[in-house]
């Protein structure tokens, strides 16, 4: 197999295919058959890079474990819960989000330059990266398939209200929508509105209401009554 005739005979329903045809799930399932062409290709490339002394396979496992198990939306949820409960923190977040977020220990790759945008009764914020898949890794982990997909990247900027309706977010036309296209290294975190009836909840309980999608702006924080059901 040469590098120039990269195979194309994969099943589009498999793998992280953000624009699978209707009726196909955008994510695949575990293979139990012979390796596909791309599986074989990745295996042979990894073996070559290891043999050439470029890559330590144990390092690959650490990268994967970090973003599969250690870093994820639970981090961003803690920032949101802190912003909801600590007005001084919220003020610091508004002044210098990267610095305020680092107080909670979240910093580094793909979150070097953070800006927090707050949803209110009058304004709803939605984050996209039309050019690739820029996303605040230290706070949210790696982006979901839909965030990286052509449908979202093409439509979020031209018809955000319709995209939000697909996510079940029905905003009144009087609510202003601000879409943030992440075209530089600034990374945006949406601070969703704090649900009503949560005055007595602890910061930890509040964090449990904060979903990944709500911190992109594609969802709302969970209603506590529904969340405990």
């Amino acid at each position, binding site marked *: 197999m040469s590098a120039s005739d990269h195979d194309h005979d994969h099943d589009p329903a498999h*793998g992280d295919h953000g624009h699978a045809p209707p009726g196909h799930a955008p994510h695949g399932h575990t293979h139990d058959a012979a390796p596909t062409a791309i599986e074989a290709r990745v*295996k042979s490339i990894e073996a070559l890079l290891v*043999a050439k002394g*470029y890559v330590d396979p144990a390092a690959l*496992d650490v990268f994967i474990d970090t973003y599969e198990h250690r870093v994820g939306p639970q981090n961003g949820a803690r920032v949101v819960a802190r912003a909801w409960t600590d007005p001084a923190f919220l003020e610091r977040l508004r002044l210098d989000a990267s610095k305020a977020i680092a107080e909670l220990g979240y910093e580094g790759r793909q979150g070097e330059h953070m800006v927090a945008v707050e949803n209110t009764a009058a304004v709803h914020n939605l984050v996209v990266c039309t050019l690739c898949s820029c996303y605040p890794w230290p706070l949210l982990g790696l982006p979901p398939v839909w965030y990286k997909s052509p449908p979202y990247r093409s439509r979020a900027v*031209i018809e955000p209200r319709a995209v939000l309706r697909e996510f079940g977010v029905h905003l009144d036309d009087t609510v202003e929508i601000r879409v943030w296209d992440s075209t530089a290294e600034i990374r945006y975190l949406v601070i969703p509105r704090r649900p009503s009836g949560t005055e007595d909840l602890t910061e930890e309980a509040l964090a449990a209401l904060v979903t990944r999608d709500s911190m992109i702006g594609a969802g709302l924080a969970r209603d506590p009554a529904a969340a405990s059901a």
Partner: protein
Amino acid sequence: MNGAQDLGGMMGFGPVVVDPSHPEPETPVFHSEWERRVFALTLAMSPVGRWNIDQSRFARESLPPARYLASSYYEIWLAGLERLMHERDLLTLEDLDRGAPAAPASAHPGRVAPADIAAVLRRGGPTARTPAQAPAPAPAYAIGQRVIARVMNPRGHTRLPRYVRGRAGVVIAQHGFHVFPDANAAGNGEAPQPLYTVRFAARDLWGADADPNSSVTVDAWESYLEPAP
């Protein structure tokens, strides 16, 4: 370049949420083992190949448009990684034909050690530069100033999406000096420039039929902008 990555405003990709009764869960992050390996190989190889983030983005978006749009996310990552390695003779066609050598080479000086990964990720790759590092004049545009995104069609990498070119917006934030991707991707150094957030009314981007109560912001380097008349 005017490649397939520049998706903002395109139509016909279908719904973002294919099945609203089954939204994409927050886990799993990866949907097959080869995706894990491609992700990790990409992170592990950048200090070996010494390419920067703008060069990696350019490698991905240089895929012919038909192939870009027919590829899944991690297929695009793999194609970009292969291109970067081929350009630097880190992985050749002969390598792929021959397979891994029997005698492994010694570790490359750029090889990432598992124990160093946490620190590497925590350090990240900040792109902000001090004015002293940026032999450019002070920022030309003030917050609140009306600007126009330049009409430009560079053959190399750029982060100015097509859908804002020629449109008028308002500067809403200044971010100091940041590495300029167009220069950095071409290997012409960091050439830092002032970076702004510019807000465009949806109707100024998409016409009279657009949502009257929404806007899109992009982060734009100074040379992407000119003063509005």
